[in-house]
């Protein structure tokens, strides 16, 4: 129970990271470190966190879109995966099986709180009429507390109840229906495809397929690690900018057939 409480608090803190400083604890890999500390099994926690990090790589809040909540998904999945007492491969498969529905469920809670927080906004509107700058603080913190609870409560319930039954569930899965865990293990391996495809739907425009192929060839054929690809990609980005800006300039020069004005020179900055 104390562990469930600690996990719930950790989930709330990670949520604050998502809505605040963006230190990175809103992502599975860093969220899993807290689970590892609380449950005393860092290695399994990080392996689960890394699997989920890759699985949910493309899951990101863009604009007003609220994605599945990877924080509660990771914490509940990793915690129950570790508590199940299975070997690391089974623990990861179980974590994926539990994490995905949790994330989808909490996503709905988040949408709910984004709506109920409007009440606090209206409260702040009224409070502002007093002219006291501090008067809005309590409404701000009320919103913050709501977000904290959206993750803390489900994590507390799931890990609190889960800790009693998860060992039996794991034994049942391993002995009676072993295909379920293998299926989730394979499905977990395919999950990054969804996240990456999501990134691509937002980034594929103009001539971007050229760079998609370059990146793929570097990884699949030349076995360049990600950091190497990122460096080559940074160079490619610089080169792309150089070419596009060059084209723009020559097009402008041809269109106006006049010497470049001062404004054009600012492009160089």
């Amino acid at each position, binding site marked *: 129970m104390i562990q469930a409480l600690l996990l719930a608090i950790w989930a709330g803190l990670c949520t604050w990271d998502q809505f605040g400083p963006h230190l990175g604890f809103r992502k599975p890999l860093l969220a899993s470190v807290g689970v590892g500390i609380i449950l005393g099994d860092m290695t399994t926690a990080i392996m689960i966190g890394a699997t989920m990090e890759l699985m949910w790589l493309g899951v990101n809040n863009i604009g007003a879109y609220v994605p599945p909540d990877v924080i509660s998904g990771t914490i509940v999945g990793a915690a129950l995966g570790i508590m199940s007492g299975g070997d690391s491969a089974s623990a990861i498969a179980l974590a994926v099986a539990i994490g995905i529905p949790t994330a989808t469920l909490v996503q709905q809670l988040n949408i709910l709180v984004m709506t109920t927080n409007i009440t606090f906004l209206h409260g702040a509107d009224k409070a502002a009429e007093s002219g006291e*700058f501090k008067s809005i603080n309590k409404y701000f913190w009320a919103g913050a507390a709501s977000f904290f609870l959206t993750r803390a409560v489900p994590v507390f319930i799931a890990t609190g109840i889960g800790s009693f039954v998860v060992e039996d569930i794991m034994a049942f899965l391993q002995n009676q229906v072993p295909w379920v865990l293998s299926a989730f293990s394979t499905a977990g391996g395919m999950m990054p495809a969804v996240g990456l*495809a999501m990134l691509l739907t937002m980034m594929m425009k103009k001539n971007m397929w050229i760079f998609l192929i370059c990146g793929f060839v570097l990884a699949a054929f030349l076995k360049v690690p990600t950091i190497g690809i990122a460096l080559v990609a940074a160079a490619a980005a610089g080169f792309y900018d150089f070419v596009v800006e060059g084209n723009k300039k020559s097009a402008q020069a041809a269109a106006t057939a006049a010497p470049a004005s001062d404004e054009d020179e600012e492009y160089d900055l």
Partner: protein
Amino acid sequence: MGKISKKTLNRVLLRTQGCQFAHNYERMQSLSLTYCISPVLEELYKDAPKELRVKAMQRYLEYFNTHPIAIPFILGIATAVEENTDEEHKDTVTAIKTSLMGPFAGIGDSLLNLTWFPIAGSIGASLCVSNGSILGPIVMFLLINLLYWPLKYFGLHKGYESGMSLVDKFGVEIFDRLGDAANVLGVMVTGGLIATTVKLKTAIEFSFGEGDPLVLQTQLDSVLPCLLPIIVTFICYRLLKKGQGKNSAQIILGIIAVCLVLFALNYYVPGFPKIFA
């Protein structure tokens, strides 16, 4: 320049660490933004009549939404403008705030959320996915924060020192250019990640009487490594395009359902081949 002390600005910086705590669907970051800027307002409006203080707060309670990491910079500029305008010209503050939030939201999403976070995450995860090494999370944490803290700290202070001149100097075109560059970077890394992170292998084998069976995966690898991951990613891409990105949950459940069915058939139905490894 500068009635506002560094200390007050740093209090704003601390408060911007909660820049979306009161997020809501009606006016997004507005309430949080008011909380963030209030140390500055308190100093500027110390002796002002009540009515002006109300107006000052209402300026920030208006609709506002941008990328969290851009908020310190925008507030830095807003502080400079607040300080240098009299009460009749406070519209400028709102105008600047509103005109900056859009471009910064776009650039923040494409440079940071879509590019830097996935890069940091995949580098970190690749270091520890098979052995659970603590090095992975540490590297990820450093990659994120060594970029984000300077952006936040210098964003606020430089924004305040130079006010709008910084934006005027570079112009809005710089956002488009940075966005395009981030796009190239992001797409290329994503291309690599398809090969390294999507794991799918087939277990299908054909046996022709005597001799070794023909292992399909070996054949596929000799045609094109990572062929199956490419196909899966492409199918997901088409489906997401069709559903305008709102159907990701259905696609995830669909993948799980397909895997469950195939593995169940393989387990219960004799003679049903193992499709995936």
